[in-house]
């Protein structure tokens, strides 16, 4: 019973790894405890989004990742 946290862009640099497996189910407070404090601080900012199972959450504090699901931490984007 585990979920995978995926770090993207500058958040990956903060952690130094691509992803991290944690016990499931995983909610918002569990996520904040599972990541380093520097990442948790970022997650609390409005400009950082979270996707669970391939869908971006409109309210990230409602996170509830089940076994086998991926939780992606999405800092501000820049493409093109």
């Amino acid at each position: 019973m585990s979920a995978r946290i995926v770090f993207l862009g500058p958040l990956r640099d903060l952690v130094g790894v691509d992803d991290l497996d944690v016990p499931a189910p995983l909610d918002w407070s569990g996520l904040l405890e599972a990541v380093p404090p520097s990442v948790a601080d970022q997650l609390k900012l409005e400009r950082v989004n979270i996707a669970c199972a391939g869908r971006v959450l409109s309210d990230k504090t409602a996170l509830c990742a089940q076994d086998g699901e991926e939780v992606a931490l999405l800092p501000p984007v820049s493409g093109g």
Partner: protein
Amino acid sequence: MRDVRLLAKGFSPAPPLAALARACPDAGGIASYTGKVRAGGVKVLELQHYEPLTLPGMEALADRAMQRFELDGVVVWHRTGHIRAGAPIVLVAAASRHRRQSIEAVDFLMDHLKSAAWFWKREKREDGWHWIEPRAVDHTDLARWKENSARV
């Protein structure tokens, strides 16, 4: 015709532009934009993406442009990985009956790819890697389409 791709290797804009023209014989015109790594200062650029979101997001964006601007065809190609100075990062192209629809579609697609698609960009300069965030003007550009959404 809707040709949306994430590309791990380099590409040339000419073949997809020619393919779009062939696929849309009734279109009066084709507008395009090719974005590339500027020569000055940047040695290499890296684009990260997130598989479950990035390509589906680009496909949904292309569909919105097709509908909003009544396009006959659209091309959205975007590089991932490491890209050297001078190489293309992104190509968007739109074929339409009337001129301004294709030009506006290209403008719309680029504004969204720049600051509303799932990419993270960093540049390697003399002093190491730097993450790039959208400039204030990118957000202003994007907001133009939201203001207009009631009209279209």
